[in-house]
């Protein structure tokens, strides 16, 4: 059993699991953080800020580079079309992947690269909300990239010779030559058409070999953990899991118990920040800005945490007496995001579900929309200018600040100290994200909200689930680099967890020892089992083993063969041999020996059994629990007589 790690970012995981002859891909995350190396895609055509070409000190290299790189406020950026770091698909033959299991919308954005460009022929499994929200994320990404395209593809800077001489920020880019351009909307449609949706705890059979089941992970609407079971092994895949109480259905731990191995990924990206405190900070900073007459900009994804932000913020605004401050939500999928969130009641927490029976929409943002306090727009040209009222709070994508309407708002509000940009998405380092917009006057607040498992929660969970083995990212067994003194911020388990990192193949410590085999009725008719102990019957069988669809069946030998006769590979017969079993009854044995003419038999009981002394034949028989020794110094005929008598006293198959 092997596990290949294709992704370098444990929060955007992608694994290949070879298990019982089946090849599974676990998640298919896309690491978008590499877009930070690029200049933002302005909504309004090119601003003067980005025009300054970066000059390489080496004139030769500068000539090769041309105007691929630009300098903004001391940082160097690639002035080309955005590219993304897909997982290391080269590690495996994607056409041999039998199925892809997706955990949540955050871990599926690289899916089109697999399904549309690799010859993949398998099936993709995920829950329905994951499919829909994933579609929204993909469509938003593609729309942002295609809406204001930068058609120039830059690749000269990626050559090893030039890359090594570039400033650190670009130099540390991981395998830029493997970066790929964004897929298209057509790819999204085609890719999602291969998806088979599953419900929580619904069992799906993978080629008869494995049963997969999704169970709630409590991280987002429809997010799940996977259990992969064969009749004798159970592996669990935990990805994007939250034990906190937010809007999704709470985590279901029961199916994850009694597993031989658990693979953990997508733990919190910000272990030093408490999500509850951060929501409080977020609300507080928003209200301070509004009360000071400023506007608030929140770079965000179109779904997930944003629903909690709407809920908490609106109630906090109410409690601070700011009931008239408008909330604007801009995303190419804002309409479908808000609409879908309110129809997935069965995937939500108990409190949200109970609202549906009132009947009320599960999320309060539905009411905010109906009273006009929360307004959604597909982009800034979608009527926003008609309704726009300041001070206000704008939620807009993309959190990387390299694309989407958020770029426009930073350019618009960045010069005023009264405004605030509030980072809540933990995927991107906020200072790097802001680098191309410097110098920036607006206030910057970093309140990352990541409800994923913290180290203490993960350790507690594992102590509860007690898996046989644990597999975690290498970065999870050492304290985060920025909190190196926090030695408790590691995954701690006994036996010590196995670790994975990008490009590594792990041999999992699980050995298959048993397999279930069925017997056909015809064969069963000929079997005469003998009860060797209560409830356990044994029989000799000679049959043909048929393997089909990972199912093993014993059938009668085909007609051409002599039934019941064992043969060697060359067709020669093997002498029939019987198997003896049972324990020796000493008295019966002694009687049998007497009948064979052996006299003067002395029996001595020992701790482990008995010693039978035959002084006339100069023989000792030592009978123990699991063995019998005949120590015969006399004639060979006596030994054979004793052996045969002994065999007669035992049962045979």
């Amino acid at each position: 059993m092997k596990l290949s790690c294709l992704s370098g970012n444990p929060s955007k995981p992608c694994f290949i699991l070879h298990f019982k002859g089946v090849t599974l891909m676990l998640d298919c995350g896309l690491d978008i953080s590499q877009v930070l190396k690029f200049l933002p895609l302005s909504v309004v055509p090119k601003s003067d800020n980005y025009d300054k070409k970066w000059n390489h000190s080496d004139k030769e290299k500068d000539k090769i580079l041309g105007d691929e790189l630009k300098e903004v406020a001391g940082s160097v950026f690639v002035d080309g079309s955005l590219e993304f770091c897909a997982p290391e698909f080269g590690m495996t033959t994607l056409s041999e992947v039998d199925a892809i299991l997706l955990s949540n919308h955050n871990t599926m954005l690289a899916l089109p690269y697999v399904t549309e460009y690799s010859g993949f022929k398998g099936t993709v499994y995920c829950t329905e909300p994951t499919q829909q929200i994933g579609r929204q994320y993909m469509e938003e990404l593609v729309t942002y990239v295609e809406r204001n395209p930068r058609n120039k593809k830059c690749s000269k800077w990626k050559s090893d010779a030039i890359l090594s001489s570039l400033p650190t920020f670009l130099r540390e880019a991981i395998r830029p030559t493997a970066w790929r351009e964004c897929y298209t909307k057509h790819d999204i449609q085609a890719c999602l058409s291969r998806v088979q949706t599953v419900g929580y705890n619904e069992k799906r059979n993978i080629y008869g070999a494995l049963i997969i089941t999704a169970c709630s992970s409590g991280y987002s609407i429809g997010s799940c953990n996977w259990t992969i079971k064969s009749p004798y092994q159970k592996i669990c895949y935990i990805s994007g899991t939250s034990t906190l109480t937010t809007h999704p259905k709470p985590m279901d731990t029961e199916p994850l118990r009694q597993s031989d191995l658990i693979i953990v990924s997508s733990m919190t990206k910000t272990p030093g920040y408490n999500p509850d405190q951060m929501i409080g900070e977020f609300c507080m900073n928003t209200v301070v800005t509004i009360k000071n007459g400023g506007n608030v900009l929140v770079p965000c994804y179109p779904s997930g945490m944003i629903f909690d932000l709407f809920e908490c913020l609106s109630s906090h605004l109410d409690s601070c007496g700011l009931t008239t401050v408008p909330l604007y939500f801009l995303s190419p999928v804002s309409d479908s995001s808000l609409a879908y969130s309110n129809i997935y009641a069965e995937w939500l927490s108990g409190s949200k579900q109970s609202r549906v029976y009132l009947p009320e929409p599960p999320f309060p943002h539905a009411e905010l929309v109906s009273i006009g306090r929360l307004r959604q727009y597909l982009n800034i040209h979608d009527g926003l200018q008609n309704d726009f009222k300041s001070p206000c709070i704008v939620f807009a994508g993309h959190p990387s600040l390299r694309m989407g309407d958020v770029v426009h708002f930073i350019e618009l509000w960045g010069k005023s100290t009264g405004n605030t940009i509030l980072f809540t998405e933990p995927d991107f380092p906020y200072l790097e994200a802001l680098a191309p917009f410097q110098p920036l006057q607006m206030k910057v607040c970093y309140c990352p909200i990541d409800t994923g498992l913290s180290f203490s929660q993960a350790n507690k969970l594992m102590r509860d689930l007690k898996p046989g083995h644990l597999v975690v990212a290498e970065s999870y067994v050492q304290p985060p680099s920025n909190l190196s003194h926090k030695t408790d911020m590691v995954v701690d388990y006994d036996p010590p967890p196995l670790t994975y990192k990008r490009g590594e193949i792990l041999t999992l410590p699980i050995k298959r020892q048993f397999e279930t085999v069925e017997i056909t009725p015809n064969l069963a008719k000929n079997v005469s089992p003998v009860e060797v102990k209560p409830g356990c019957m044994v029989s000799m069988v000679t049959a043909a083993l048929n393997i089909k669809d990972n199912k093993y069946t014993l059938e009668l030998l085909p007609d051409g063969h002599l039934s019941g006769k064992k043969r060697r590979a060359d067709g020669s017969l093997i002498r029939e041999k019987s198997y003896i079993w049972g324990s020796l009854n000493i008295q019966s044995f002694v009687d049998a020996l007497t009948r064979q003419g052996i006299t003067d038999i002395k029996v001595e009981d020992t701790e482990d059994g008995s010693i039978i002394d035959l002084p006339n034949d100069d023989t000792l028989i030592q009978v123990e629990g699991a063995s019998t020794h005949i120590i015969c110094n006399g004639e060979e005929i006596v030994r054979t007589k004793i052996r045969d008598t002994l065999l007669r006293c035992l049962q045979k198959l």
Partner: protein
Amino acid sequence: MNEQEYCKKVQEVFEFLLSSSCHIHDDTLYHKLLDSLNGKMIIPEFAESCGVIDFLQRAGNNTDISPDTLVFAVQLVEKLVSKLELPGIHLENMSVLIETVALRTSVDNLSVFCALFTTMTTILQCPCIKEFCLNIDFQDILKKSFDILKEERSIFLSRAVSEFICSLFSSKMAESQEAKKLLKELQTIIVNFDRDGSQRVLSPSMLCSLRVLEKAPHLFNDSFAEILDVLIILMKIGSTQSSTTAARCLHSLCLQCQDRAKSERVKSLVTEAIETVDIVKGLHIAKVLYPLQLLERSSLENTILEPLQMLDKTNHSPAMHSSLPAVSLSLTIVNDCNIQKLEACKCVAEVLKMTENRPDDFTGSGCYSFTGSSKLQIKCLDYLGSYTSKEVMLSVISSISNIVSYTTEHMIYGKCLLCLCRLLPEVLCSSCYSSERSTVKSDLSKIKESVQRNFCSVEWEFRDTSCEFVRNLMDKHKDKEGVIQWMLDSRFHVFACQAVGDGESYVRATSLSTLQTVLLSSYRTNLLQDMNTTIDEIISQILDVCKTDSEAFPRRSAARLLHHCLLDLSYLLHPDSIQCIAQCFSTSLPSDFDWEVKLIVVEFWCAILKRCFDADLDKETSDQPLGIVVSLDCLKNEKDGKRGYVSISSAINVLLKLSCDYDPSVSERVCQELCWICETLEKFVLKISSATNDDNRSDWCVCAHCSQLITELLNRMTEGKEKTRNDSVFKTDYDSNAVSLLDDILLLDRSQDNNDEDNAIDCY
């Protein structure tokens, strides 16, 4: 009911109490009866005529009497002996009762013995004590009391006995042989105290002996040296109880000690004890001794501050973990003893500095175990909130700026702001503030940001505390331009006043109070400008709060605010606003559900009336801002339909309405106010009638409405007076009708029920 009938009824009650069928489960009836009798017994003859003496005599002889009745009888003796000069024969009866109870009743009956010793304690201080004791075996009672102490029975009984023994030595009986014998035993108890120090909790007998020693140290002169040794041991035990008791005794010994050498010896032994015990015990001793002035305060201060000074010298070493309890105790003592000295202040500021970082912050300097310790922060801030020397002012501000930026405890946040409020005037005037290199500006700027954020905190306590801070600044420093300017620059006033619409009622209430403070100050124009609003708009908003807020706290604050706005800022208000306020006080607020709101309404209209009367009495003031008040003339104009909202008639109408309010607090208050209103109105009528010609007088009297109003007012006032005289909020039926208490007690007599057919039928 006349006195004779009352006495007869009392006798019946006594008869019932003495009967074996007496079962009164509610012992408050005994107390009420005791109070009632105590109130009526002014002369000994009355006690005789209503059968009290007879009851006490029979109670002593009656073996079937219930314990509760016995307690009642003993307490009755206490009242009689301490209040009346009883003839010898009566005193004898009572001493017989006391002796019988003391010697024949089982000590297990705790309540009886508690009452007995409490009574004896009172009687010991009476002039007739010697006469009283003539007929009792005082020796036996003392022995009994001493036995009870040694047996360590109920804490209440031990306390009663202890009180009795203590008062014995300050009474006329102190010189008796019995008392002297007891004193010897008490001395023995002290001298034989377990010296190995294992006895940390003092026994009742030891405590009692020490109390006697503290009250009358001269009685123990014989064994001065031994007692001194014991007291020093007690002090060294280190428990609060033993240290406190020993310290008080030592202090008392020193005060009474004529011999200078002895006094010096006491002091040197105490000093030595402090030096030899561990630091925490030493602190306990110092805490007890500090207010007593037994030792030089400076030396005690050194002991108290030692843990804090040691910290300073060790330069925040993490090895000082063990000193945390000592530091904490030291800070408590500095606070409790109110040591307002530079040295102490420096130490406290230093500890605050060590705690200023986040609890999980390992990067800053400071002792790890102190970092972020909220307990230490609270103690430091408590001290610095009452006293901060100039030398440490900037350090404290720096610490406060750090603490307020992260603290999640609103108590600490509040204390930081209180401290800041105290320090701000000096900080802003200091030369450091104007210096470019000083960090105080950045500290204040950090505080400003934190306070602004906390105005918007998710936790209402933080928002409330922030509003309160603004109010405090305005209240305490309204004449200090620098402070006010700093506050205005920080826009705190705007944040505080915007909280009128807060979701939490307490915050709304505090915000309204703050708004009131700001509006009544000379900085109201800044507020109005910064909020881009007018005073009339604000008034309209507050009127909405009065009418629609579901919580009482904001309505109270809003009503108070409107009250002050109308009285003090009427010249700024649009007439419509004035009319709305008056209407609100006439119609909605008087029918508010909250009684305190209604009291504000009463205060408002009384203030209006005072202004009206003052304006009419003194023509010079009539042109004052309250020209809006239609004065006494309105009464005459009523008939012409020219009734204003702010007028004497509307005031009186509201007050008359509230005088019938279902809430007694409101109606009583109105009735109290009506007295002076009536008096003033009567004066007016007299003044007008004497100063004006007959025609005017006839005008005044002819006005049907006015005369009706005044008549009603006078009637209501008379009713109110009557009611106040007879009634009180706290007065019960029993207070007004003593016989009903006696009837109720007699109703409990079950022996009569059997013959009462009606009752039997009722039961089914």
